[in-house]
C-alpha cells in the first residue's frame, strides 16, 4: 500500500506541476465571464443559471482532464521510459496500476475542489445560501468522471494511441448520457430496434443514475454510488488483466 501511495503522490505532483492550474485558471475565467453575462440575461433565474453553468463547466473540465490524463498516462510513461524504471522495482503491476489511477483521481479531485471553491465564491457573492444538494452534485460528477476515467485507462492500455483512447471513452460518455432516452425509445419500439436498444442498455453506462441534482434521496445515492464504484472496478480489473500481460 505504501508503494501505491508513493506512485499516487508522484502522479499528483506531476499533474500539479504540468497542467492543473492552467485548467483551473481557464475555468475561473470562463465562469466569471459567464456570471457577468448571465446576470444580465437570466433575470429571475440568475442563481440557477450560475449554479448550472458552473456545475456543467466543472463536469466538462473534469471530464476532459480525466480523459486526457488517463489516456496519456501509460503511453507517456512508455515514451519517457519512466515505466521501465518503475516496473523494474519490487512492486507488482496491480500496485502500479492502482498507484497511478489513485494519483489521477487525486488530481481530478484537486481540480474539482479548486473549481468548486471558485464557483462557491461566485455563488455566495450572488447571495446564495448553502444547500447540501451542491455537495451531492459534485460527488455525482466525480463518480461519473471516475467511471469514464476507468474506461479511458482500459482503452489506453488496449490501444496504441491516446487519441483512440479518448475517442472511445468520450463516445462511452456521450452514449452513457443518452441511455434514458434510448430506454424511452426502446419502450416505444419493437422488433430489431427494440433488441438493439436493449443491447445498448446492457452495454453502455448509465450516467443518469448519478445526475442527482436537487432531487435525490438515500436510495438514489446508494444505488448510484455503488453502480459507479462497481462499474469503475470492472474496468480496473480489465485494465489489470491487460497490464499483467502487456509487454513494454
Amino acid at each position: 500500500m505504501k508503494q501505491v501511495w508513493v506512485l499516487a503522490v508522484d502522479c499528483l505532483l506531476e499533474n500539479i506541476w504540468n497542467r492543473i492550474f492552467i485548467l483551473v485558471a481557464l475555468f475561473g475565467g470562463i465562469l466569471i465571464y459567464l456570471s457577468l453575462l448571465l446576470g444580465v440575461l437570466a433575470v429571475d433565474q440568475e442563481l440557477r443559471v450560475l449554479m448550472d453553468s458552473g456545475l456543467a463547466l466543472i463536469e466538462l473540465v473534469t471530464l476532459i482532464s480525466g480523459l486526457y490524463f488517463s489516456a496519456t498516462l501509460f503511453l507517456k510513461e512508455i515514451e519517457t521510459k519512466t515505466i521501465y524504471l518503475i516496473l523494474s522495482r519490487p512492486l507488482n503491476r496491480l500496485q502500479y496500476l492502482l498507484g497511478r489511477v489513485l494519483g489521477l483521481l487525486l488530481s481530478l479531485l484537486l481540480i474539482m475542489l479548486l473549481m468548486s471553491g471558485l464557483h462557491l465564491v461566485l455563488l455566495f457573492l450572488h447571495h446564495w445560501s448553502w444547500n447540501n444538494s451542491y455537495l451531492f452534485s459534485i460527488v455525482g460528477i466525480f463518480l461519473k468522471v471516475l467511471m469514464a476515467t476507468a474506461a479511458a485507462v482500459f482503452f489506453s492500455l488496449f490501444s496504441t494511441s491516446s487519441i483512440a483512447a479518448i475517442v472511445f471513452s468520450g463516445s462511452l460518455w456521450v452514449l452513457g448520457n443518452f441511455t434514458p432516452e434510448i430506454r424511452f425509445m426502446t419502450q416505444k419500439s419493437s422488433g430489431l430496434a427494440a433488441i438493439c436498444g436493449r443491447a445498448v442498455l446492457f452495454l453502455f453506462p448509465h450516467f443518469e443514475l448519478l445526475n442527482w441534482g436537487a432531487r435525490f434521496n438515500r436510495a438514489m445515492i446508494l444505488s448510484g454510488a455503488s453502480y459507479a464504484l462497481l462499474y469503475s472496478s470492472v474496468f480496473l480489473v480489465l485494465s489489470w488483466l491487460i497490464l499483467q500481460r502487456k509487454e513494454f
Partner: protein
Amino acid sequence: MSSVISFRETAKVYRSSHLGRTTKKIGLIDFSLDIEKGEAFGLLGLNGSGKTTTFKLALGLLTPDSGTVNVFDLSPKTKSFYSRIGYVPELPYFHSFLTVKACLKFYAKLSGLSQIDISAHLERVLWETGLVAHQNKKISELSKGLSQRVALAQATIHNPDLLILDEPMSGLDPLAIRDLRDYLSRLLEEGKTIFISSHSIFEIEKLCHRVGILKEGRLVRVLQRKDWEGVSGGLENRFAEIIQNDPTSKALLRNSIQ
C-alpha cells in the same frame, strides 16, 4: 561461479498489425548466454541489433516467444526478483521539478526500503555517485552527465546484486565517462554483476570481462578479455571484423522466421 543470468535458446519476435496485415520483426533469436556472478558482461551491436530486447527479457518486461530466461533462479515479475536488480534504460526521464534527493527518495520508496534504510542508502549513493553537492538541485538544472549519475544512483539505491545498464554512457563527456567507469569498477569490486551495452567500445573494453556481439538479433560471438587485449586495434577491430564477416546471419534469420 554460479550463473546470475541464463538465456537458453531465447527468441523474441515483435508483431505489429496494421489493416489486418501482421508484420514481424526479429528482436532476438536463438540466444544462449550465461553471465556469472561478479562479472561485467558487455553487449555490443549496431542499432536495432537486439541489445535492449535482451535487457527487457532479462528484466521480465518482455516474455520470450521460445526458450527461457533465468535470473537468480527466480521467477520474473516477483518482488524478490526485482529487489536484486537495478536498471538504467537509455536516456531515462526524471521529473524536472524534483530535486535530486526527492527523485532518489521516490525510487528508494518504490524499492520498498524502510524510512531508516532510505536515509542510509541515500547518503551512500549520493556519496558514491558524487551527487552530494547537487542533491538539492532540481533535475532540470542538471547537466547530462549529472543526470546520468542520477540514473545510476536510482538503479543502485536499493543495493542490488545485478545492474543492467542500457547505453549508460551515451551523450556523456570524457570526464563524466571516466567517473562512471570508476564507479562501475568499484561496484564490481563489491561483487556486483554488471550487464551493460554501449556504443562506446573503448569503455566496454576497459570495463568488461566478456563481450557479446549481437547482429540482427543473433549473438554472433562471445569474446573473452584475452581475445582483444594485446591484439592490434583492440576490441574495436574485432567487433568490426566480426560484424562485417558474418555472412550467415541474415540467411539464418530468414529461415528462423519461416
